[in-house]
């Protein structure tokens, strides 16, 4: 695979940008900045994909990530203390191990990449990649594509169910308490009854032993 000089220059720029912004994600105190540094890293990778003539995948990656990272920034503001970086913060655990793991994985992967002899069969540099991908998506790989769609739909339903306030039997905070078996029994009674049983169970077993 050989590329022209301008493409090489652009590649170096985007690659450096993608790596540097990926690093900055974990080096900033502001949640919104962290999310948008990550977005910048994705844009860098997306741009490299466009250079590789995988236009559609690269652009879709960028398109998707704008929404995803904004949600991420938003969720961070919702759930994380200190969203604006008023206080400096470094919230990490097993820091040294993590650094070691990161560096090791980089070395191993890079080494493998350099030492392995991959087949050399570059893609023909035409602008038909998008069209071929479309034919593939709705032709041979339709099953995969549809599975992905179904998986996403299932995930959405599941995610809403998990996140929503109402569980299957009522408010999530009160736990999912099953309804009573008798129609006139109070819910609270049923749950109190069951808790009692749960607590008594071990001692009953203990008595038998």
């Amino acid at each position, binding site marked *: 695979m050989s590329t022209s000089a301008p493409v090489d220059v652009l590649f170096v720029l985007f690659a450096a940008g993608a790596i540097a912004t990926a690093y900055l994600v974990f080096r900033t105190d502001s949640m*919104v900045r962290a999310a948008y540094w990550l*977005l910048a890293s994705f844009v860098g990778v997306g741009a490299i994909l466009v250079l590789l003539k995988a236009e559609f995948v690269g652009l879709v990656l*960028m398109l998707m990530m704008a929404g995803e990272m904004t949600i991420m920034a938003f969720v961070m503001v919702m759930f994380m203390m200190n969203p604006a970086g008023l206080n400096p913060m470094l919230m990490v655990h097993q820091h040294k191990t993590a650094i070691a793991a990161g560096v090791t994985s980089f070395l191993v992967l890079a080494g493998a990449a350099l030492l392995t002899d991959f087949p050399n069969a570059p893609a023909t540099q035409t*602008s*038909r*990649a998008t069209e071929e991908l479309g034919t593939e998506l709705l032709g041979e790989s339709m099953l995969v594509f549809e599975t992905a769609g179904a998986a996403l739909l299932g995930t959405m339903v599941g995610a809403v169910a998990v996140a929503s306030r109402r569980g299957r039997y009522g408010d999530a905070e009160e736990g999912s308490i099953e309804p009573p078996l008798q129609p006139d029994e109070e819910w609270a009674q049923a749950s109190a009854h069951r808790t009692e049983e749960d607590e008594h169970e071990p001692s009953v077993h203990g008595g038998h032993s």
Partner: protein
Amino acid sequence: MRPYLSPPLAVITMIGVLIAGSYAVAVLEEIAGTLVSRRPLRLTYVFWAPLATAALLLTQGRTSTERPDAQAWALAPALLAGLAAVGLAVIPIDQNTSVADPAAGFVLYSAAISYVMVAVYLHGWSANSTLPLIGAYRFIAQAFAFQIPFLLVLLAPALPAESLAISDIVEAQESLWNVVRQPLGLPIFLVVSAAATFSLPLDFPDAADLAGGTSSEVSASHRLAWRGARAGLLVMVAAMGASAFLGGWQGPWLPGWLWVILKTLLLLVILIASSHTFARLRIERFVVLAWVVLLPLSLVNIFFAGALLL
């Protein structure tokens, strides 16, 4: 593949289009405001006012809020203007001329639209002040509501063209414009365009009940940049509407580029006139409207467009 403009010429064209487009938007705004308020129309004033206001904003000094995220704050208007430029770049100027006409032009355009959310959120967030922040929050709800209908309604014109390149979409309208072939398309597109450019009646992040929202704390050249970028965005959606629904460069007698400009201006007039006509919706009404009405309608539109092809 169509011949592109040479890179220097393309850059000059884009800058020229953005500046001329923003000026046109400002003049149209001024005219619409004058007509609705029933002030006497003074034409010299109307044509001078945008330039004079721009000059005034440029001569003034900027003020700052307390501890803003200064880099992000300065970046946001530039990002928005850049997005307008990216979106405009994929739209062919003429049958034989375009700044950039990639095979996945539609996807690039959609990506630019979805980054508007990033620019507005950054602009509101980084000012470190209450009203801009509320504006930023509002735009997130707004953006997630309009984006899917926006993508779907723009995808429908790609079906008869069997291509994601904008020039192919225009070419496919040679016999029949999409505004006739897909009668639902243009109305939905205009509504979601007003939302995407956050102009009245859907100007939630920069609304008057927030004293300007995300732009309530910006001053001088920063204010000019933000207003210019918003106007550029308006031009960008109008130009897309002209290409995707009104047949772009196609038309008798006049050269293609003139048709593109005229059709874009027509859509700009419609968008600006409706922004001076309708009352602002409440944001929850808009969100409901987008998910419950616009989304199903745009799906119907796409099925309709697909069925026509079979």
